[in-house]
């Protein structure tokens, strides 16, 4: 097989739009109210990506030109994620107005201008009805491929309060994109708050693990068998031990959740995908090979740069341990099939 040349970059970020950028997309009421109150951005944005942290300090400015030069120079398509932080805006109507404005801004400033970009829908995850309303409003635009949910949530995502969001996502052929970060009324971890960014970023692994557990155990995939979930910026190598735990405990206690009728690891391989930046790879290639073997699927991992964020980890490390066929899946086919990108790029019609 030839060296694979096609790529889809499954996690690229635009900087969240400050209020000035959203003015054209907000009503007069919200423009005046937010200006009068000195609002610029939801505080979740700074919490998730502190401007001078290692992940951000040397990050290039994100513009269409920098994305074209540094992302689309190697990728045919990219998924553009706007980590806006609407979950941290407690005022439901303000949060909804901002998410609507952010999505209109995404369309006008990014998707309309660059057809190789696809977007994730910003929603208000803590108000299901408003989230569903927004999904229905923009979900018909085929350039949106998923609903963006921060991994830090108000309740674990298996909770029934979220189910209408999942139903709306399926109705519009959208995946869920659960992304690192978020700011809610709960501590950063179940054992309490954390003191520094190193802890905040590292501890997110347990949040992803908790969301995987909750979605499976609460029966979300039994209720919605076609639901697809991408874990974005979740890290990768933690997954196998969690699968072992899930399967072991399920055999012992599955009577509590009789709707889960097969091994939880089978649900994970069927319904979940992961972006591979960060990868959190061990030092030895052989160890990475073993981890991939334990994940047990060539379809789960998707290439991502997480542009413009800077990581100690490198998704290209993965290429060294993959066969040419696996490389092709990782770089292109897995994301193309998961999001149906090529089919979307034909049918996408800029509004």
């Amino acid at each position, binding site marked *: 097989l030839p060296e694979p040349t096609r790529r889809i970059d499954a996690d690229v970020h635009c900087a969240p739009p400050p209020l000035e950028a959203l003015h054209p997309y907000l009503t007069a009421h919200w423009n005046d109210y937010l200006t009068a109150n000195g609002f610029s951005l939801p505080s979740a944005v700074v919490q998730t990506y502190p401007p001078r942290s290692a992940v951000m300090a040397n990050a290039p400015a994100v513009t269409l030109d920098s994305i074209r030069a540094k992302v689309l120079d190697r990728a045919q398509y990219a998924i553009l994620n706007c980590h806006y932080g609407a979950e941290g805006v407690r005022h439901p109507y303000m949060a909804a107005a901002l998410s609507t404005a952010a999505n209109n801004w995404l369309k006008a400033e990014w998707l309309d201008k660059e057809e190789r970009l696809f977007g994730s829908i910003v929603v208000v995850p803590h108000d299901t009805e408003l989230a569903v309303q927004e999904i229905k409003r923009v979900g018909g635009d085929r350039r949106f491929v998923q609903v963006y949910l921060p991994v830090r949530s108000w309740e674990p995502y298996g909770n029934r309060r979220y189910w209408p969001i999942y139903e709306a996502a399926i109705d519009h052929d959208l995946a869920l994109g659960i992304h690192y970060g978020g700011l809610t009324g709960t501590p950063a971890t179940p054992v309490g708050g954390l003191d520094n960014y190193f802890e905040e970023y590292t501890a997110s692994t347990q949040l992803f693990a908790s969301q995987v557990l909750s979605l499976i155990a*609460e029966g979300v995939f*039994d*209720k919605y068998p076609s639901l697809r979930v991408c874990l974005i910026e979740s890290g990768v190598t933690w997954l196998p031990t969690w699968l072992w735990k899930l399967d072991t405990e399920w055999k*012992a206690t599955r009577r509590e959740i*009789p*709707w889960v*009728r097969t091994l939880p690891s089978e649900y994970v391989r069927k319904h979940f995908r992961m972006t591979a930046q960060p990868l959190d790879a061990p030092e030895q290639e052989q160890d990475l090979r073993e981890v991939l073997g334990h994940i047990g699927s060539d379809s789960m991992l998707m290439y991502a740069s997480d542009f413009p964020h800077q990581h100690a980890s490198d998704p290209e490390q993965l290429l060294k341990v993959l066969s040419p066929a696996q490389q092709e899946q990782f770089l292109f086919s897995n994301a193309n099939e998961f999001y149906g990108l090529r089919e979307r790029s034909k049918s996408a019609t800029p509004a």
Partner: protein
Amino acid sequence: MPKYVIGPVNETPPGAKRDVRVGGLSIAVFNVDGAFYALNNRCPHQGAPLFKGTLCGRIDSTGPGEYEYDPQKTLVRCVWHGWEFDLATGKSWFDPERKRIKPYPVSVESGETIAEHDPATGSARIPGPYVAETFPVSVEDDYLVVEVAK
């Protein structure tokens, strides 16, 4: 296939769970409301004694929040890690073809039947041979008999 006499049937009353050694094997014997079951006594997971397991009904579901429960006790849950096995077939709930326990036919037969049987000559009327390893059989009682493939 030799048949081993476990003992008088009234030693294994309804609700009883016990282990017996016959033919060099450890066998778990259960009486569920008068129905007898015998399985190899070793859980295929980590070797726990199966006879100590909990008898329970079957639970299934058609979706979240739906509990289809059959209270008839047709499963034994291993006492160590909760794996469920069908009492009649020995098959596990979660992986019936690969994780399973050998079941043994168990029956109640009259002392008369057992005592009259002559292993030396055999008999068309009576399957056997019976092996009463540790006690004499009296014709007045009924006995629990397990059939063990060698």
